[in-house]
C-alpha cells in the first residue's frame, strides 16, 4: 500500500508521524479521508477525531480544529491542539464537560452561548477519542 508523509504541528509541539497509509480528518462539512496521491489543497478542520493508519495499525487523536495543507510532498495539519487517544486526561475532560453543561443550563447573558457549545464539543470529542 502506498504511503505519504504526515505531520501534525501545533503552537506547542510537533508530531512527525512519518510515512502513513491513510488519514481521516474532521472537515467543516463532515469527515474526509486522505490517501497517497491526493489532490493538493487547503482544508479547514473542525473539532473532532483524527484517525491515522500507519503500517496497518490505527491511531486516534483528538483535535480542536485548524487547517490541513496537502501538497504533493506531504500532508500537514496545523491545529490548535492535538491529543493522542491514550494521553487524554479523561478526568479533566469530564470536569470540563460538567462545567460546560452547567453553564449551558444556566444560559445567563454573561456567558457566551457559542463558546459554551464549543467547549462542550471539545470535551465530548476528547472523551469519545479517549474510549478508543
Amino acid at each position, binding site marked *: 500500500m502506498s504511503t505519504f508523509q504526515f505531520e501534525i*504541528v*501545533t*503552537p*506547542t*509541539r*510537533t508530531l512527525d508521524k512519518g510515512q502513513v497509509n491513510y488519514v481521516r480528518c474532521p*472537515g*467543516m*462539512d463532515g469527515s474526509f479521508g486522505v490517501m497517497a496521491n491526493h*489532490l*493538493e*489543497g*487547503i*482544508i*479547514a478542520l473542525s473539532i473532532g477525531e483524527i484517525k491515522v493508519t500507519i503500517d496497518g495499525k490505527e491511531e486516534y487523536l483528538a483535535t480542536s480544529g485548524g*487547517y490541513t*495543507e496537502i*501538497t504533493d510532498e506531504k500532508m*500537514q495539519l*496545523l491545529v490548535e491542539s492535538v491529543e493522542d487517544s491514550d494521553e487524554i486526561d479523561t478526568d479533566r475532560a469530564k470536569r470540563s464537560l460538567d462545567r460546560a453543561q452547567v453553564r449551558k443550563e444556566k444560559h445567563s447573558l454573561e456567558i457566551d452561548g457559542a463558546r459554551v457549545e464549543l467547549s462542550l464539543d471539545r470535551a465530548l470529542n476528547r472523551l469519545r477519542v479517549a474510549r478508543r
Partner: protein
Amino acid sequence: MANLKDIRDRIKSVKAIQQVTSAMKMVAAAKLRRAQERMEQARPYSKRLQGVIENLLPDVDRGMLDLLEMREVKRVGYLVVTSDRGLAGSFNTSVIKKTELEIAEIGKGNSDIFCIGKKGRDYFKKRNYTIIEDHVEFWNELDFNHAVKFGNSIISHFLTGKVDEIRVVYNWFKNVGVQEISLEQLLPLSFSDEIKQYGNRIFEPSKEKIVQSLIPRHLNTQVWKYLLESYASEQAARMVAMENATENAGDMIKSLQLEFNKARQSAITTEMLEIVGGAEALVT
C-alpha cells in the same frame, strides 16, 4: 598611597555589587530556559502557518480581504518590542536606535508607534513621538491572549486606514550569545514574487472563508512570535550582561586587593622604620 580604610570599603561595596549581578544572572538564566523552550515550541507552527499563507496568496485576489490591501505608503505604524527592565546590555538601546533610524527616513510626523515594554515607551514619550498604544508590565504573565489583544489593536489601526503599513522592530533570538535586531513588515502581507504554479487545488469550505479565518490567525501567531523571541532575547542579553558584570567585579576586587596589600605592606614598613629609628636614637 590610598588610605587602607578607603580601599577596604571599596572592596566591600564591589563585593556587594558582584553578589547582586551574579544573582541577577542566575535569575535570568532560569527565565531564559523557560522562555527558550516556549519559543522553540512555537516556532514550527508560526513558520508552517506562514508557509501555508505564502502558498495560498498567489491564488488570492488582493481585493478579497482588507488586510491584503496595498496602499501608497504615507504613514507607517511601528510595533516596537522592548523590555520593562534595563540592565540587559544593548538589548533595548539597539531596538530603539534601529526604530529611530527607520522613523527618520519617513519622518516623525508620519509615524505611529505601538510600544511594547517600558523602556521603549519612556524613550519615545520623552522625545514626543506619536505613541498610539503602550503595553507594559505584562512580561511576567505573558500568554497568547496578549498577542491576540495587541494584534487586534494593530490590525484595526491598519484597517481603519490610519497607517498604510505596519512594521515590527524586535530582537530576534539567534542563540544565547547573539540576538539580532530584526525589522519585518507585518501588514499588508507580502509574499515573494516567484509564484509556484499549482494545478487544481481544493479549498474547503471555500477559498474566501479559508483566507478570512487563516490570515487573522496568522497575524496573531506572528505577534506571539515577536513577543516570545523578544522575551527570550531579553533574558539572554541580561544573562550575558550580568555575567560580564560579575567577571568585571571579580577583576576589580583582585586589583583592589592587590592595592590594599601594597598599602598595608608599606604602612608596616613605615612603622618598622619608625620603631627602628626610635630605638637607635635611644641607643646613641
